[in-house]
């Protein structure tokens, strides 16, 4: 009997203890969720990650929390002041003068001025450092500090859209002389300061109360790394994280309850493509190239690869739906047209095509599987060849006759010059279109916005007739968060104002 009582008493103590611990945990969770935003990060570049925003291995979830650009973008991607308050150019668009915001402090208390801006831009365009940002801003030949708040940029050619290019999410301002320390101990002007940088564990940031656009509403942000996308999805469903910056459109059924989750679908400029090398037969024949592109039902292919509402079809233009220069063509599936083009090119019985792909990124294998089915009726017989993910970008991309490609969002001026210009380092098909080059030169140096727009439209129309790159869609990013997270507009991550986010 005594033993029974003792046992009951012990059980009661244990239960009471557990209740206390549970209450404490719940309290802790509640207090954490009131001011802490937990953002899931994929493994990305792992231990090679750095907070240096100009490095190819930049820790992308956090750089825009810590640093600011000279020019930002609004919800509709219009350039808006950030660290520069105004900008103007000379008549031929080769010299730009920017007025910098006065009195802005870095996290260490030092003042941001034009010397820091010159230092930052010099690093971005340094050919030895070869930053990925150089592909965007390489047109800048010289950055000069006129006075503490005036910056002059000289370009190698006229560029009407320099403000848009300066709004690239990596064109961030770092303190003068910080190149050796910025990677691990970043000092920026942004709304949050980095207190723990652990790209393979959990990175932590705390609010910068002196932020020049107002103190952040959140006390802190935590960025746990969850390598596997399925695990990240489960972490959000289970409440271990509050925000998934991007997830598969096909997975959103898990987050259907609006009382618990907010799902944002954000049209983006990310695209996949199938590239055909023009220096390889049969892709040297423009009729074959066009047949391979018009035999596809792009809407159906987009829905199959990305899921319903997962993307926006495009007629082989890399210029996305949010870009003012976007061309909307008519590229309905034309099986008979494709058959005729193939017959004219000497393939009356259809054609065999081998396309290399890899699971190095989402959707790259599914794209070829969907393409394979779509083009069958036109007599295009596709052999899908899987390549090893680890060597795909070095051994397959730009080397095999036909392969799958993947690009992130870029403004029209940048993407057209970076991918389609004859002399571009990353021209993946080797196509030398001199006429297109001349059209690009003319468009970028046209000062009048309406005329410039018309020229960019003509460029995309010209590309649809000639290109060797089949671009079926731009992806719609799917961002999911717990319903308690407020203040994130349905816009691309470049434009999110982190200081305005709050957790209820």
């Amino acid at each position, binding site marked *: 009997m005594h033993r029974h009582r003792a046992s009951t008493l012990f059980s009661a103590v244990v239960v009471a203890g557990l209740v206390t611990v549970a209450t404490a945990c719940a309290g802790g969770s509640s207090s954490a969720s009131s001011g802490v935003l937990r953002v899931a990060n994929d493994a990305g570049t792992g231990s090679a990650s750095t907070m240096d925003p100009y490095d190819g291995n930049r820790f992308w979830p956090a750089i825009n929390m810590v640093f600011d650009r000279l020019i930002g973008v609004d919800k509709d991607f219009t350039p808006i002041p950030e660290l520069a308050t105004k900008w103007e150019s000379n008549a031929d668009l080769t010299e730009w003068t920017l007025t910098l915001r006065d009195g802005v402090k870095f996290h260490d208390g030092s003042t941001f001025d034009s010397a820091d801006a010159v230092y930052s831009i010099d690093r971005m365009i340094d050919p030895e450092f070869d930053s990925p940002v150089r592909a965007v801003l390489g047109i800048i030949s010289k950055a000069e500090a006129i006075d503490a708040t005036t910056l002059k940029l000289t370009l190698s050619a006229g560029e009407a859209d320099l403000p848009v290019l300066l709004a690239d999410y990596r064109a961030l301002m770092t303190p003068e002389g910080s190149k050796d320390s910025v990677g691990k101990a970043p000092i920026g002007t942004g709304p949050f300061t980095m207190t723990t940088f652990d790209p393979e564990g959990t990175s932590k940031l705390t609010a910068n109360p002196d932020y020049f656009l107002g103190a952040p509403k959140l006390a802190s942000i935590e960025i746990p790394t969850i390598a596997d996308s399925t695990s990240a999805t489960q972490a959000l469903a289970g409440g271990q994280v509050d925000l998934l910056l991007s997830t*598969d459109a096909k*997975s959103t059924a898990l987050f259907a309850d609006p009382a618990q989750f907010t799902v944002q679908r954000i049209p983006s400029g990310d695209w996949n493509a199938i590239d055909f090398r023009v220096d390889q037969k049969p892709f040297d024949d423009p009729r074959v190239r066009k047949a391979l592109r018009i035999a596809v039902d792009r809407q159906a292919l987009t829905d199959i690869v990305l899921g319903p509402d997962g993307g926006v079809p495009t007629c082989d233009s890399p210029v996305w739906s949010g870009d003012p220069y976007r061309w909307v063509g008519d590229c309905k599936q034309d099986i008979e047209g494709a058959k005729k083009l193939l017959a004219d090119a000497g393939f009356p019985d259809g054609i065999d095509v081998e396309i290399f792909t890899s699971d190095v990124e989402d959707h790259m294998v599914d794209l070829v599987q969907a393409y394979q*089915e779509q083009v069958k009726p036109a007599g295009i017989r596709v052999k899908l060849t*899987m390549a090893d993910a680890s060597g795909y970008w070095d051994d397959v991309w730009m080397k095999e006759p036909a392969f799958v490609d993947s690009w992130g969002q870029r403004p029209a001026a940048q993407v057209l010059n970076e991918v389609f210009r004859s002399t571009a380092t990353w021209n993946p098909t080797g196509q030398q279109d001199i006429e297109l080059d001349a059209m690009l030169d003319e468009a970028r140096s046209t000062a009048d916005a309406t005329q410039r727009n018309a020229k960019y439209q003509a460029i995309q129309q010209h590309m649809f007739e000639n290109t060797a790159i089949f671009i079926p869609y731009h992806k719609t990013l799917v961002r999911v968060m717990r319903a308690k997270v407020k203040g994130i507009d349905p816009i691309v991550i470049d434009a999110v104002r982190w200081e305005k986010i709050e957790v209820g």
Partner: protein
Amino acid sequence: MTDLARASFEPVKFAAPGRRRAWLSVGAVIVFGHVLLAIVAPWLPLQPVAKQNSGAILQGPSAAHWLGTDNLGRDVLARTLFGGRPSIGLAVASVVLAAVLGFAIGMVASLAGGWVDEVLMRVNDVLLALPSLLVLLLVASFIGRDSGVLIATLALMYAPPIARLVRTASLNVLTRDFIVAARLRGASRRELVISEVLPNIRGVVLTEVAMQFTWILLAFSSLSFLGLGANPPTPEWGLMIAEGRGYMTIAPLPVVAPIVMLASLVLAVNSTVDRSSSDGTP
């Protein structure tokens, strides 16, 4: 010596009642069902395995799709039933080649003895020590993933255990009185192997071959799961699991169905082998 070995090293006997029991076991029925389905799948009234439907992605079971659809809107039932064809076909081809190789090496080693036996068995030991999945990954990455290459590699990696068993079993048999008698009456080596040794080691060798079949089946599915086996859009169980795992919480059937098929085949083969071994029959 185990019951299995003792039973198998006796001179060949007529079938005992246990043989019938073994081949009529549940496991055998499942194995037979798998093989039958793999053969007749193209003639069954199924949806085309590669047919995609943008309006039916990751759907649950319905009258049109009994096991639902996968992430490209393809019919899971059709892909699951067709999924056994590449796996079983490749595993059978590999294990037959492995059995021929293993038997030849084991017999030569046991009959020749001396340095020939020593060299063959040391090479065999080296192959046995290599992690087979790692070798397969390397071969698939650097040489290619054509069926011929994969069958040859799988056969090479899974022949050594058979060779070692054949050598051990035949050495055991070669010392028996009936072998001495056969030698005295002037039987040639060929006659000795075919008429005396083979019938007496058949049971253990077939058991080992069946076991190796399941290992090869799992190895090929693992390779496909890792993206280096079957090429999309081929319906293959390992590949189907890999393709469906990202959506498992929304649509589990594209993953569960091939897992059930793979697991049931492996378990059924193992159970049939166990049953026939314990019955003392091959």
